[in-house]
């Protein structure tokens, strides 16, 4: 297997693992909602970010596990492979299709990968070009966003600096947002907010909570993955979940603070949205983007195939009104996380290509050969019968 094949396999495995994990997450969310459980948003966000890190690291974990299998540190019986499982089910009669069709189904991914990597005319070349074009487009978009953000930060006025956190004032920012460089964190506040001291305090609390939660780093991580996952709908589901939870977690933390009046905070969000929309109209197309590598107080821009900013704001206010959210004990959280981690690891492991020929695969191959032999013998018999009767063989 060439290096290209290996890299492409890891790429496909990552996409499958992300899809399966997203489905597990959505199922868990559905079940929790069904039983009326209101789990703390910070716990949910930590969980979601942790699972994403596990997805990204899953190829490494699989490589280590397979190395341990080869070195016989882990017994061969503990090897998990979906293709091997399917073959054993086929041999037991659990799958009722002709052996040759089953073999062809098993080799589908390999054939597709080969046709993409060799740019074979038709489907293979089409998919390869789409993947390449998407990668280049989203990577370029990410680069442009970083540059735009850099330019915007350069036009801001420094307000205060405390350690690595820099508070900046901007005339062009639609709403407050948090960004970061390699070492510094930047909280950008629309300069008009200086004239509203009460709102300014609440907005600062919210944005500094983003800094504490490390939301910008996760946002950058997710955006850097977009060129790889751009065609995967589950990536967008995942991103939307992270965006929703990080705002809700920040809102919750600010609202929990003893000095914050819940009504005042909701009104502050509403005023910030109104000011953002007003400014959006004023700054049509010019200098209004806060860039990708940033986390905004709220959305005021409509996005394709996404909930409107008004709907999102409404949900945030509704979520704020639900108090007494459950913060489970870390032991209970671990117990809930463990099956999810197991699913990620098992998914990543089971979709790997089998290392070599197993007994079952040899058996399947023998069945295919026997079927072929039988077909050939049947055709010869027909030919003989036809010649005996002086007729042309039936086709």
């Amino acid at each position, binding site marked *: 297997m060439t290096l290209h094949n290996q890299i492409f396999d890891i790429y496909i495995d990552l996409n499958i693992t992300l899809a399966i994990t997203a489905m597990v997450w959505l199922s868990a969310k559905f079940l929790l909602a069904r039983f009326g459980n209101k789990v703390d948003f910070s716990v949910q966000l930590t969980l979601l970010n942790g699972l994403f890190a596990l997805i990204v690291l899953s190829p490494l974990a699989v490589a280590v596990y397979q190395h341990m299998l080869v070195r016989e540190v882990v017994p061969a019986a503990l090897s998990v492979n979906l293709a091997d499982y399917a073959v054993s089910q086929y041999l037991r009669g659990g799958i009722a299709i002709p052996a040759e069709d089953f073999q062809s189904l098993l080799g589908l991914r390999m054939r597709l990968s080969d046709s993409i990597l060799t740019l074979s005319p038709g489907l293979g070349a089409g998919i390869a070009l789409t993947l390449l074009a998407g990668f280049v487009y989203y990577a370029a978009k990410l680069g442009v966003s970083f540059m735009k953000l850099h330019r915007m930060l350069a036009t801001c006025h420094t*307000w205060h600096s405390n350690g690595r956190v820099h508070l900046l004032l901007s005339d062009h920012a639609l709403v407050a947002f948090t960004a970061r460089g390699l070492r510094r964190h930047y909280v950008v506040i629309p*300069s*008009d907010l200086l004239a509203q001291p009460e709102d300014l305090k609440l907005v600062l609390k919210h944005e500094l909570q983003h800094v504490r939660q490390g939301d910008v780093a996760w946002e950058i991580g997710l955006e850097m993955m977009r060129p790889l996952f751009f065609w995967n709908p589950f990536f967008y589901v995942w991103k939307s979940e992270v965006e929703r939870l990080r705002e809700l977690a920040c809102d919750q933390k600010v609202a929990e603070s003893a000095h914050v009046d819940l009504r005042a905070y909701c009104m502050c969000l509403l005023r910030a949205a109104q000011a953002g929309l007003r400014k959006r109209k004023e700054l049509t197309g010019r200098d209004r983007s806060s860039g990708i590598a940033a986390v905004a107080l709220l959305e005021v821009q409509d996005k394709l195939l996404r909930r409107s900013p008004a709907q999102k704001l409404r949900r945030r206010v509704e979520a704020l009104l639900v108090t007494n959210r459950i913060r489970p004990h870390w032991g209970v959280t671990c117990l809930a996380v463990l099956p999810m981690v197991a699913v990620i690891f098992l998914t990543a492991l089971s979709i790997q290509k089998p290392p070599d020929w197993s007994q079952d695969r040899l058996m399947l191959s023998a069945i295919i050969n026997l079927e072929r032999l039988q077909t050939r013998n049947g055709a010869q018999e027909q030919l003989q019968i036809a010649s005996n009767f002086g007729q042309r063989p039936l086709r």
Partner: protein
Amino acid sequence: MRKRKSNEFLTEVELEFMTELWKLGEGSVRDILACLPPERKLAYTSCATIMRILDEKGFVDSRKEGKTFIYSPRLTRDTYQSRSLRNLSDKLFDGTPASLVARLVDEYELSEGDLEEIRALLDRRRTDDAT
């Protein structure tokens, strides 16, 4: 010396501060704060920040008198009005001031006196141009 950041226009709050400074001629942060309506409840530090930004943008000059900064406008109200109108005319009226004036006349209920004043202004301008 602090680096100046060029920005041709003022935000709403900055304009409010500049309006007071134009009236005062020059003044400290406390002077400007005293001119603002009491319901604004602005913190001294916020006002000082706004004045610092105006200094960075090049709208005001500052000098130190003891421990206090005294600010004075670098451009007149008329100059800023012209700049803003030119910007409005360029952006919204495709650089044709006549359309801007036409919209003004249409939108505002101008009294006979206002119209007479405008007419006199145009006549004066025409005479000046002829000489």
